[in-house]
């Protein structure tokens, strides 16, 4: 067999983990190829995840505001109409624009972008199968490299009782592309994806019911944040079935009939669309990881890596949703960069203590670090300071007074351990807390830093100032 093209590094997957890794590798002087099965780079995040959902969340928020929110400001609109096709088209433009940006960025950096599905042949070699349709390039090409970085991401977990059909039973991708507003959308899973897509369709007029297995929504977030968010969303018209299991589901003439079991009782819910958002699993199918000896976690399917992101095959690296940790685009990007730096011998790592996570509901929920629940569980001495947004001038001006900021610091050293925010602008407010944690700063540092007035961020400062006014909590 004739050896194929040689590179220093082949990155498999052009999502947030993969493309950031490519760009960093080029900066470090490597000759890089990037293999991507989809036409546009950007991965799930850009094509069918963070970006299109945020485009729809913003559009639907405007619609919602115009229908009900603006009146309070004295803005009256007689008839507000929804053009869903236009809204979807705009979403597509946003996605395509950003995708094009990434593609240009990679190409101008000198990354060789190769379209096709990759399969590992060994520690230094992959086979790329290009999409068959009329392509002149050979159906399969062999690429070789000193190192291979796997960044193939994850895919939605299906419901065992009812497979996706792309129409009535959909995953998050399907729920971004409804051609009409559902009448009744049932969402299995009360996590970020379910709540965000639920918010979109709720605002556009759907009835939305969320079925969640855990007793709270957004499990893992600070309890107070979860409870507050649930209250606010309920006020917005969401119906929640918590501690509820999907016992069965079947297609019915009207759509889907979902039977749920809650508190020992079974209940049937009729809906025209069912969104399954119970989580994501690492996407390794067809990659041939087992055949070359890359070890997986048998329980979760994650690729096992060491602190340098090397798999059990020393020339194969892996980052992002493929490996353990939260399935977040920014975590993948950070790992992609760190992995490439480790390859180049630069001591690099990702600070997993300070990775923010955000739910883009309205208001938004953003969080970083330890929650009070987990600190109590571990018996760690901490203090928490809270500032409700109702006291924040800017929030009142905007009429966005729902929510609060909670800052948690160690009782002894005052080192910031976590921050939890519900606010219209929580996604941007969390950054200063992430920075403070990155710097091992005490909560006093936030409290003493001068914050612009009037801003939402003042609530972060107030919460930090409240930390030291309160007595220490112990488990």
């Amino acid at each position, binding site marked *: 067999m004739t050896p194929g093209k040689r590179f220093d590094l082949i990155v498999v997957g052009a999502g947030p983990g993969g493309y950031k890794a490519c760009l960093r590798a080029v900066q470090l002087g*490597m000759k890089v190829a990037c293999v991507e099965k989809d036409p546009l780079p950007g991965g799930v995040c850009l094509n069918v995840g963070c970006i299109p959902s945020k485009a729809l969340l913003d559009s639907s928020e405007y619609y919602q505001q115009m229908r009900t929110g603006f009146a309070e400001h004295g803005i009256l609109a007689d008839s507000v109409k929804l053009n869903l096709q236009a809204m979807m088209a705009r979403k597509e433009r946003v996605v395509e624009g950003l995708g094009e940006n990434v593609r240009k960025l990679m190409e101008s950096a000198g990354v060789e972008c190769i379209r096709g599905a990759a399969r590992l042949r060994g520690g230094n070699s992959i086979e790329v199968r290009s999409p068959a349709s009329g392509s002149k390039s050979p159906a399969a090409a062999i690429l070789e490299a*000193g190192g291979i970085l796997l960044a193939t991401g994850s895919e939605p977990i299906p419901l065992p009782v009812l497979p996706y059909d792309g129409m009535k039973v959909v995953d998050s991708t399907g729920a971004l592309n409804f051609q009409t507003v559902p009448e009744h959308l049932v969402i299995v899973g009360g996590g970020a994806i379910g709540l965000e897509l639920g918010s979109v369709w709720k605002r556009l007029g759907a009835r939305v019911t969320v079925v969640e297995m855990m007793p709270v929504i957004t499990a893992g977030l600070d309890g107070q944040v979860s409870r507050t968010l649930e209250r606010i969303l309920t006020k917005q018209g969401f119906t929640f079935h918590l501690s509820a299991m999907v016992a069965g589901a079947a297609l019915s003439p009207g759509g889907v009939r979902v039977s749920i079991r809650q508190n020992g009782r079974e209940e049937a819910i009729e809906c025209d669309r069912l969104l399954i958002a119970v989580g994501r699993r690492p996407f390794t199918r067809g990659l041939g990881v087992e055949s070359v000896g890359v070890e997986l976690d048998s329980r979760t399917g994650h690729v096992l890596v060491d602190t340098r992101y090397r798999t059990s095959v020393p020339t194969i690296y892996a980052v992002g949703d493929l490996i353990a940790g939260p399935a977040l685009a920014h975590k993948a990007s950070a790992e992609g960069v760190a992995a490439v730096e480790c390859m180049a*011998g630069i001591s690099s790592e990702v600070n997993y203590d300070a990775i923010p996570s955000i739910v883009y509901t309205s208001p938004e929920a953003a969080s970083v670090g330890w929650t009070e629940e987990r600190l109590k569980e571990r018996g760690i001495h901490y203090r928490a300071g809270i500032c409700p947004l109702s006291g924040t001038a800017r929030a009142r001006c905007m009429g966005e007074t729902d929510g609060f900021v909670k800052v948690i610091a160690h009782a002894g050293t005052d080192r910031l351990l976590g921050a939890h925010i519900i606010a219209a602008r929580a996604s941007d407010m969390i950054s200063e807390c992430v920075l403070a944690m990155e710097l091992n700063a005490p909560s006093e540092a936030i409290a003493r830093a001068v914050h612009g007035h009037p801003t939402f961020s003042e609530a972060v400062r107030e919460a930090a100032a409240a930390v030291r006014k309160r007595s220490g909590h112990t488990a």
Partner: protein
Amino acid sequence: MQIQIRVPEVGESVQEAVLAEWYRRDGDFVRKGDPLFAIETDKVTLEVSAEADGVLKILIREGATVAIGSVVGILEAAAEMGEVLKPHGPAREEREAEPVAGTPESTRASDPGKLPAISGEEAPESPPALGKEPGRERPSVRELPPSAERLVAEKGIDVSKILGTGPGGRVTRGDVLLFLEESAGAEAMERMAGERRPPGRPALQEAPEEALAGSPKGAGAVSGAEVHRPQEAVRRQPMSRIRLRIAERLLEARQNTAMLTTFNEIDMSRVQAARIRFKEAFLKKYGVSPGIMSFFIKAAIVALKEFPEVNASIDGRDIVYHDYYHIGIAVGAERGLVVPVIRHADRLGFAEIEKAIKDFAAKIGRNLLELSDIEGGTFTITNGGVYGSLMSTPILNTPQSGILGMHKIEDRPVAVDGQIVIRPMMYVALSYDHRLIDGREAVKFLKRIKECVENPERIVMEI
């Protein structure tokens, strides 16, 4: 090509330095100009950068004392970037024109025949065990990220006690910090909050000589590659600033003076009798107990006045006489030896001296000693007797020219007027700089102290 990494010249007088930190790890690929390691001398800290691109091989570990010009590592100049991606495993010395990156060392590379990139020897027969990864295993979550690893090494923590919250349960730097904050309790918290109060009370201390004897001069000077030796429990940590300073000062005194010690013994019966007799009245009036230190300071001042060279110091070709009497008292504190100075001790009464000593002890205990408290002494007294020392040879507190060593008081049979009697006796030692003080003066100086302490009325009469 191999490039040796040497410790550069840092100054004329500097012969060796401490390899304070490797910025890069063994097996890392480094680029020309990347900082590789830092060396510390008593005066400067210096970063040393790579002279070329290449893979770093570390020969000397952090914390070792290295001679100027010695080789601490090697740069294997890499032919190409592909080289970088070689597994960091056992170093195989195969140099090929085409730097085909490493052979997968996985224990189950199932179809090796189909791997086109593999050249030559497929499975290296068990590689030399000096590599840090003898055979690649499952990537373990027990492995620490570099930042956490550094912290764990620095603090000497048992990682198995830390619960990991990182991906897959891996321990993060934050987990280590929390562990420290929680497990060390209040003490560690305070230290982290600002190095304010080390616990423990100070005590008047013995001759600083013991500090030198205990300093691991030999042990610290590990050089050369890691020597194979059985696994004995050894802990290595950098010296604290104060310990470094003490070490430096004492060595300097040993090397730069012509130090000599003369001895005598003192019958303490009259001082002891006076102390017992006036103890209550003294305590009532001044709030401190009458100690023996005040007698010795007073006696020393009588002698210093008589022998001004002992209160002087050498500066270049000059003798600097001090027409004042600032007496340093060596105190062993938790963090190391300190010598607070009682200023113008000649103008102070017994009670004032005792109070000054008590105040210093309190200040040291709370770590409030200021630089001005320890500067400017002209003569030093050290009392190893509080620890039970029978005899010692104190080291000069340079640039001072004399130091008096007190020791424990012991009932001993002595001959007085032809009779054997039991007396509370103390050996005293005077170490002096022979460059400035002749033996005759030193002996007479110590004898004058003896006379004053044995007959305290001489102190009053200054004879």
